[in-house]
């Protein structure tokens, strides 16, 4: 059970995320098909496959922040669409914010807060707009609260994953104001946002590897 975000945990997280994306590609694509353009799953799979290849080729022992930064650049270079630059920039911002050689829970929460800020800055979305922010924000908030309350990384990650999952589900009734789903107007209500769903999946991967 890891107590801080170090190289191994960062690598494990990214690999677990890649595995989860691969496994749930169709579900993500189907969600995007309903209110978007039906490519979210394949976009992320393409990106995380490249992240896996990146990890396979990296020299060992790099600090966790570097892993996240490089993974973010890879997503930007491979994914395209809205999710590519948003997730990519988020990882880059988070990675840059993490201290070396390891990041404790407070550092991690701060890093992911920096990543989330980058998403909000680039995309202009707020909670309630039916985007990945609806899962990302409560997950980061859960980590921050857990850090403040002295929880372990493991406990905190589990809470963040739950919060992200609840956030993703909370998008179902919403009418989208950002991203492609917004083009549907009221018809976007009744569907879960694909990006919020993949965000929940990334936090679930973190909880698994930190568990």
């Amino acid at each position: 059970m890891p107590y801080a975000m170090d190289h191994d945990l960062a690598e494990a997280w990214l690999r677990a995320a890649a595995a989860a994306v691969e496994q749930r590609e169709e579900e993500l694509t189907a969600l995007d098909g309903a209110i978007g353009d039906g490519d979210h799953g394949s976009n992320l799979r393409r990106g995380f496959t490249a992240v896996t290849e990146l990890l396979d080729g990296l020299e060992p022992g790099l600090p966790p922040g570097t892993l996240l930064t490089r993974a973010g650049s890879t997503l930007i270079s491979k994914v395209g669409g809205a999710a590519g630059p948003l997730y990519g920039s988020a990882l880059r911002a988070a990675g840059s914010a993490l201290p070396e050689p390891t990041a404790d829970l407070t550092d991690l929460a701060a890093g992911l807060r920096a990543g989330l800020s980058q998403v909000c800055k680039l995309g202009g979305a707020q909670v309630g707009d039916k985007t990945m922010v609806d899962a990302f924000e409560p997950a980061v908030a859960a980590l921050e609260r857990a850090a403040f309350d002295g929880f372990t990384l493991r406990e905190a990650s589990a809470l963040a994953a739950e919060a992200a999952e609840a956030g993703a589900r909370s998008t179902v009734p919403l009418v989208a104001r950002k991203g492609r789903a917004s083009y549907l107007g009221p018809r976007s209500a009744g569907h879960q946002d694909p990006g919020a769903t993949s965000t929940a999946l990334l936090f679930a991967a973190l909880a698994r590897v930190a568990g």
Partner: protein
Amino acid sequence: MKKLINSPDTVLDDTLAGLAAAHPELAVDRAARVVRRAGGPRPGKVALISGGGSGHEPLHTGFVGTGMLDAACPGEVFTSPVPDQVLAALAATDGGAGAVLVVKNYTGDVLNFALAAELAAEQGVEVHTVLVDDDVAVEDSTYTAGRRGTGATLVVEKTAGALAERGATAAEVAAVGARANAASRSFAIALTAATVPAAGRPGFDLPEDQIEVGVGIHGEPGRRREPLRPARELAAEVVGTILADHTLIPGDQVIALLGGLGATPLHELYLVYGEVAALLAERGLTVARRLVGNYVTSLDMAGFSLTLTKADPELLELWDAPVATPALHWS
């Protein structure tokens, strides 16, 4: 899913191979995913570059050539290109006079082109961006993602391309592009859904007697679903919706683009255009120029879109300027 492809994963690469074989006058870089005019950068000429997800052909690759784009960056199907592609296109076409990026207003396109523009600007390239957002089906407000870019992209690329060809500055080219966009409104109706190869099934299920009104070009459902009606009524719906949002008055001239969405045969497009032309005449509008065909498409979606651009002498002159690309050709 019934498509002429080898595998969903290789659609873009295989299409670029075919494009290269079909158009020796283009330089197709399959690795970098950049399609540009054969021959290197032209010193002193502003590079006009566009791009976006694939599946809208001939947009944008079919508009590369004299009088229009210098390069196009095709992304995966319905997925905006990545910044690396735009940077490669900028590098391959940089003639020292800066570049103008024509970007359809989708979050993904905006973000990826913006990242590239930022990096290019850091390297000292003067980069302007023209955002295309002509689709009146979408509500426009600062709280939303804004209107989608659809058919007006062709008008922007044609007029800006003509001006760039004459040696105008990047700022001038961008200004004309922005003006062409501001003068344009579009609206589309779909008879069938598009099937993204990687998804393997249509983006939505549409019963045999229903249509989607107010669709975009990415296979997403429209604003509402309705029963199919005669072409005359659909044309009236589309013309009415556009004109309600447009500042056109009797006597104005327009450029009209009646475009198929990919799977609609030309005879149906002509038929609809006949109705549109009659309606515009009734409203006292003069169609100064018109195009009927498949230009800004949405994979195998059946249906049509109408774009009306308010014309003025400058835009008409730029429209009439010679163009030699795979999809548009006149002299």
